[in-house]
């Protein structure tokens, strides 16, 4: 398995998208599945455009949320993207 690294430029794979359902809130729709996005999930995904790498996504969120511990943001982003990568939801460039 190709590993996710700080230089990876993740984006959602074809057939994976954020829901625009008014009823169900923030969910990621994937083939045969629905992943509920809690906490910073949606904010992270919105930055997964295939251009920014993981380090840049982390820095971006750290500057947008200066009140949050930067180490916590870094670990949350890494954990979240690793979990999505294992589910086969990401192209990691």
């Amino acid at each position, binding site marked *: *398995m190709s590993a996710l690294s700080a230089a990876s430029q993740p984006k959602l794979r074809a057939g994976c998208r954020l829901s625009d359902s008014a009823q169900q809130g923030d969910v990621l729709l994937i083939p045969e599945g*629905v992943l509920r996005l809690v906490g910073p999930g949606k904010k992270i995904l919105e930055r997964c455009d295939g251009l920014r790498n993981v380090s840049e996504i982390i820095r971006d969120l750290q500057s947008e949320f200066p009140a949050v511990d930067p180490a916590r943001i870094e670990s949350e982003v890494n954990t979240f993207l690793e979990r999505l990568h294992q589910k086969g939801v990401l192209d990691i460039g």
Partner: protein
Amino acid sequence: MMASGPLSLIAEITHRCPLHCVYCSNPLEMQARQCELPTEIWANVFASAAQLGILQLHLTGGEPLARPDLSELIATARKASLYTNLITSGVGLSEERLAALVEAGLDHIQLSFQDSQEAAANEIAGTRAHALKIELARLIKRQRLAFTMNLVVHRQNLDRLPEMIALAEELAADRLEIAHVQYYGWALRNRDSLLPTRSQWERSLEIITAARKRLEGRMRVDFVGPDYYAKYPKACMGGWGRSVILIDPAGRALPCHAAGVIPGLLFDNVQDRDLRWIWEQSPAFRKFRGEDWMPEPCRSCDRRTQDFGGCRCQAMLLTGDAAATDPVCTLSPMHGVVESITSSFHEVPTARPDWVYRIDPVSAVR
């Protein structure tokens, strides 16, 4: 018990199909073409489904491509905010038609394969479709949508599982779904030729576990085991009336594909009743919802919130009582029924099976 909201809608938009698979999940009595719902009623159903909180639509059949309005149906579903998944044999798909479906908003396509070997695949399907499917897989990869390769496995093809997984890799599927045959309808008729031996099943589990690990992050591998060898039953449909609504070609709403085998259940039609009423109030959806209907050992079992007592249709078909514990459960007092079936299969016979092929609904009605 109060109904929680459904998440998925399975739309069997037609029972017509150019394939005759010996394990088809359609009922033995199918709906004919003249009974099929028109485009505008399906569009209303999709809008009602989205309002109920449903997120995903599975367009299936029969062969959904048999409907000329398929791209219109996809467009209306997408407009209603549904994630659309097409479950297809591929017969009836061309490069142009595929592009039109994607343009209409198709998110995911599941292309079924019967085997890795052409002759064996065509024997199961009762038609020559294998070569076309390989061609289509290459066309699908040029489009922006998720691609699942569906493989139904059974005694006749299980020994080629590594080859079949290799085919999925070669065709670069995003996801591989390997499902053991479930014994309802046509598959039940052909059970004697489809049920794997215990050693085949155990070997298949090892192969799939290894493939899953090797392909992680590249290709998702989902697996449905053979009920008859399970220790506990599957959480059929995620529990009766808990997350899925199935609508047949004529508009009848069912809690699952096979529910028609249960005597005494009346299935309301989306042409007569609002989808929300059907979900929340209709007797068929309430019949086995929750735990009130459960017999022992389910009623006091810790697993009742995981498997919901298993499959009602299987209980009906194997014990004659739809409200019995699913007899595949090793805790079921009727488990001997299943054991006596599995214990009679130790070797794979070499004789060519005498298949009962699925027929087309046009010839099924008088």
